């Protein structure tokens, strides 16, 4: 089973969100970068579990510059066999998807596993785009993936429940909570990661379909209005008459 896992580099979940260059760039000062959590905890670990059960290989792929290499090494330390970095700046989802789809088509993977979204740009775009470019089925927000030969049974989140779908390889999915339990790399994995192949390849020609013009922060909350614990009726009154929320 040949598995491709897409990993992106993301700021740590507790990072301070600030901008520089006239609010056109994310301020990376003092920010620690991690593997995007959904990619690492769910897509990568489920990929590894399937390989352990059925044989095959897990390749991680990232579109980015050399500053992605530490997070790629982390994925190798958790257990991926090898890595590919497509050397490009990433500002647009369709651009990223084209890079990954081109690579995946050339190398005939059985499945392409992504995270449900990146925690910085919150796109939920790249995985579905890859699927269309590969003309393959796409299952979004998958919380369970089981393989039986070439047939995948997948559960995906829907409004108020889950839907169970079946598809044959090759397919693309985006992973949400439930797919797998996060793994912590051990010392052996970390040592092995240093010598595993990380192939840097040139990007293919593509345009950016979108451009980020600037960032802003939401207006600060005007402050919390406190109600005395002995005066709960006042809270109900405020919610009804002032906030008009009940």
């Amino acid at each position: 089973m040949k598995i491709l896992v897409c990993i992106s580099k993301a700021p740590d979940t507790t990072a301070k969100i600030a901008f520089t260059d006239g609010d056109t760039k994310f301020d990376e000062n003092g920010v620690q970068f991690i593997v995007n959590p959904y990619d690492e905890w769910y897509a990568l670990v489920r990929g590894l579990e399937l390989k352990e059960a059925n044989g095959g290989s897990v390749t991680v792929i990232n579109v980015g510059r050399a500053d992605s290499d530490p997070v790629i090494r982390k994925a190798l330390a958790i257990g991926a066999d090898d890595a590919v970095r497509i050397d490009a700046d990433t500002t647009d989802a369709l651009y990223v998807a084209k890079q990954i789809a081109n690579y995946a088509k050339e190398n005939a993977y059985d499945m392409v596993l992504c995270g449900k979204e990146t925690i910085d740009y919150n796109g939920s775009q790249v995985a579905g785009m890859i699927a269309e470019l590969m003309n393959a089925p796409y299952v979004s927000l998958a919380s369970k993936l089981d393989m039986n030969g070439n047939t995948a049974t997948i559960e995906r989140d829907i409004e108020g429940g889950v839907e169970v779908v079946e598809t044959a390889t090759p397919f693309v999915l985006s992973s949400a909570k439930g797919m797998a339990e996060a793994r912590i790399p051990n010392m052996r994995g970390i040592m092995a990661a240093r010598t595993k192949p990380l192939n840097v390849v040139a990007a293919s020609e593509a345009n950016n379909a979108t451009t980020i013009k600037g960032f802003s922060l939401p207006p600060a909350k005007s402050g919390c209005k406190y109600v005395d614990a002995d005066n709960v009726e006042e809270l109900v009154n405020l919610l009804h008459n002032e906030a008009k929320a009940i």
Partner: protein
Amino acid sequence: MSVLVYADSNNGTLTKNAFEAASYGAQIAQANGTNAVAVVVGSASGLEDLGNYGIAKVLHLSDASLDNFDPQKITGIIAAAAQQEGASTIIFSHDFSGKSVAPRLSAKLDAGMVTGAVALPNGNVIKKAVFSGKAFAEVEVNTDTKIIAVLPNSVDKVTTGGSASVEAFSCDIPSSGLTVKEIKKESTELSLTEADIVVSAGRGLKGPENWGMIEDLAKELGAATACSRPVADIGWRPHHEHVGQTGFAIRPNLYFAIGISGAIQHLAGVNGSKVIVVINTDAEAPFFKAADYGIVGDAFEVVPKLVEAVKKLKA
């Protein structure tokens, strides 16, 4: 150059998010002096109602073989409808269905796409939520055709009192390798991601046996229940109630956070709520910084009183 809206239906009824997407698309059409057309796929009724949100015409492809949601087929259908209508702007809701279809369509049409839009476009520039609701980005679409997926409960719906004409639509339906085997609904109760009011509780409640008062409050308010991650992880509450960065992201009108500290990862999933009420014994709990209303107090005393006060209001 009309505006096309994908209006999703669930069990034959249009969803709340479909009406939001319709209103958003109709407002863009009006600003550009053109019409908004909606596409509905599969058996569904009440489609004229889209007119009340500014849709002029509904294209309905009601083939029963499409009753099971299939993103690959729907992508092909929307592309055909967009071509027929000469649509250059295509609108989705950024919900479960939108996330399955819109990115496919973007790749198919080679059209730039912005998801999580929180405001009407300003020319080709669209404001979207980023960093899990902690910031916004202004994104310019560089292609002639653009796709926008609207963040649920973040753009005002405008009603027009109109009624839409409904036309049967047909086109070649692409093949798809996906088969829906089963749909499992968690419960018949109100769905968390669509609820207007959500009552949520955390580790401050000490144990699963104490959730009765939370359910009572939710029942009185017609609200859905939610919980923090550790509560779902220890198994006090079912996993589908977990909200936050790793659970569901929700944007209700009113969110009650009871015995939840307000960690950044929790806030990431609820900070889009319009009004936040925090009940916590610790006056220093970080959640109060994100709150609109707060009570520093013991949930075991405050919540039962709150249930009574709401009962009184509703009576």
